[in-house]
């Protein structure tokens, strides 16, 4: 297993796209922290990167990578190796490189310029989001045989999680404005890792605003130790379930 992971990581490094992604993140985060006169605004720009760019790249790159290494996968399958080992190694290699790229690109500037609770929360959620969307991308890649279809699905997934889901929530909020929806909303965030990460960061960043009105309900849930643990468990579940589903599919897939 270690050997395959090592091979995958070396291959990804040789590919240079992830290196470019790392350099891009590094450039943007450093310029954000240097250009903005107050660090609160810098964090806000960084938040947008974490919530938009990280999921997009973590979806697209692994999906394309899985498609392009189909011959390599076929070769591995012909060897006396368990399919489970092959798939999990591939996942670990991809997830590790995406997470590491985020850590170097955005994490190091955060640690340098903004080593506050908000910064640490961003770092943690950013790494988790990288892993979550890698596992989603692999699920999409294993489900759709056609490359164009697979990548299309991945792009739609990104659109769904970053825009459409929120649009639906907003629509529901206005349609059912007369009902107490606060508790339901807390539950709804579990279905979108981007929303969940965003709220966890907001709780550190906009705590004053969240103390008012319904914000207090979110604060009461997410702000407590228990809420924090539950949220992180939910995020981890978002890694485990797609990985498990894709593994099940891969085990019986006719390559």
């Amino acid at each position, binding site marked *: 297993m270690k050997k395959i992971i090592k091979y995958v990581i070396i291959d990804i490094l040789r590919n240079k796209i992830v290196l470019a992604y790392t350099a891009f993140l590094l450039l943007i985060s450093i310029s954000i922290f240097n250009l903005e006169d*107050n660090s*609160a*605004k810098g964090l*806000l720009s960084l*938040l*947008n990167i974490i*919530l*938009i760019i990280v999921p997009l790249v973590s979806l697209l790159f692994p999906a394309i990578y899985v498609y392009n290494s189909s011959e390599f996968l076929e070769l591995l399958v012909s060897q006396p190796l368990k399919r489970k080992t092959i798939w999990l190694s591939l996942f670990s290699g991809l997830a590790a490189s995406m997470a590491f790229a985020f850590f170097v690109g955005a994490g190091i500037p955060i640690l340098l310029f903004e080593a506050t609770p908000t910064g640490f929360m961003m770092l943690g959620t950013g790494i988790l989001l990288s892993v979550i969307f890698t596992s989603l991308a692999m699920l999409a890649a294993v489900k759709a045989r056609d490359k164009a279809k697979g990548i299309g699905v991945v792009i739609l997934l990104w659109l769904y999680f*970053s*825009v459409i889901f*929120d*649009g639906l*929530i*907003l629509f529901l*909020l*206005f349609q059912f*404005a007369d009902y107490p*929806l*606060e508790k339901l*909303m*807390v539950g*709804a*965030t579990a279905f979108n890792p*981007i*929303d969940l990460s*965003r*709220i966890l960061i*907001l709780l550190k960043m*906009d705590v*004053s*605003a*969240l*103390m*008012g*009105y*319904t*914000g*207090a309900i*979110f604060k009461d849930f997410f702000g407590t130790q228990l809420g924090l643990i539950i949220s992180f468990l939910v995020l981890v579940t978002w890694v485990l379930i797609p990985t498990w589903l894709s593994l099940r599919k891969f085990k019986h897939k006719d390559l």
Partner: protein
Amino acid sequence: MKKLITISIFLFFGTAVFAKTIHVDKQQNVKTIQQALLLAVDGDTVLVSAGYYHEQNIVINKSICLIGINHPVLDGDNKYEIISIKADGVVVDGFKIINSGVSSIEDYAGVKVYNSRYAVIRNNILDKTFFGVYIQFGFDCLIENNTINAYNKVEQESGNGIHCWKSDSLRILGNTITGHRDGIYFEFVKNSIIWRNVAEDNLRYGLHFMFSNDDAYICNVFKNNGAGVAVMFSKGLKMIHNYFEENWGDAAFGLLLKEISDGYIENNVFEKNTAGIFMEGASRIHMEKNVFKRNGWAMKIQASCMDVNVHNNNFESNTFDVGTNGNLVLNNFTNNYWDKYEGYDLNKDKLGDVPFRPVSMYAMIIEQNPPAMILFRSLMSTLLDKTEKVLPSLTPENLKDDHPLMKPMVL
């Protein structure tokens, strides 16, 4: 003329000669304060040595100075009002006053002034009193350097730290008040000044004005109260150099202005409040040189306000700068610094060339539908804000700063 001088000299010495000092000490003749009060006449001084005194209700109805040495303890045994002042010119200085009675019918207090002038209440420590210092029909009274603590949990069972009712020309200086219902409460009090007090961790408001006109509060700190300062149904108030900090919660504000007119708000700092200032029915308010930092909403200004002038203030790192509830805007914002301003300054006059609209689309959405807060800072809400900036539809057209500052004021 000579006669007049001689007479006045005689008068002066006369009082000096006849005023005496009575010592209250457990080891000496006069053992209790009650005893001393019977012996005293107007103008006398009663010195009380350190010790523990259970004297029930001490009623002072002569103009005397009651002075404690090393903070003698006056204990109300949770039953009595401790000191009642019913004469003019009484001084109460240097006591530790604890455990007053608690009643829902009578307002028991640590020190209560009834219908008197020139009372001075100074350097006392009040601990676990129902009301701390209570002034009723007072005139020209001084409440200075007292420390007033209570440990209440519910509003209904607690009184106010300094409670003033129907009074005139009070001076409230340098007191520290914690754990009461309201730190300082003013009702029908005029021409008074509140200076350099600290009100912290009180259950309701740090400072509460009702129907009190022409007062000023200056250089006070209001921190972590239920809500910072509530100013209601009053006019002609001056609010200068105060700190409003960490007033957090649903319906919590740094400063609440309700039905206020002719107010003057200058050089205050509002930091980390859920809403820095909440205004309802306020008119002719002048606000300048205030700093709003890291609040949820820097200002919530309801459509019922008019002629509120907001200029030369700094708005920095607030989640929302201004919130409102309607499209009617009769207020005026100019020359403020907004850190969210994205305009430019071509002619280099340090003023932005395009107006800044401090009310964001999403602030209006949250005003209408509070649970929408859960989508704040998502791509969706950012898109909505951007489109609103290009084509304003939901946000009030006239709520704008035509000439925002490019750089923050140095305050």
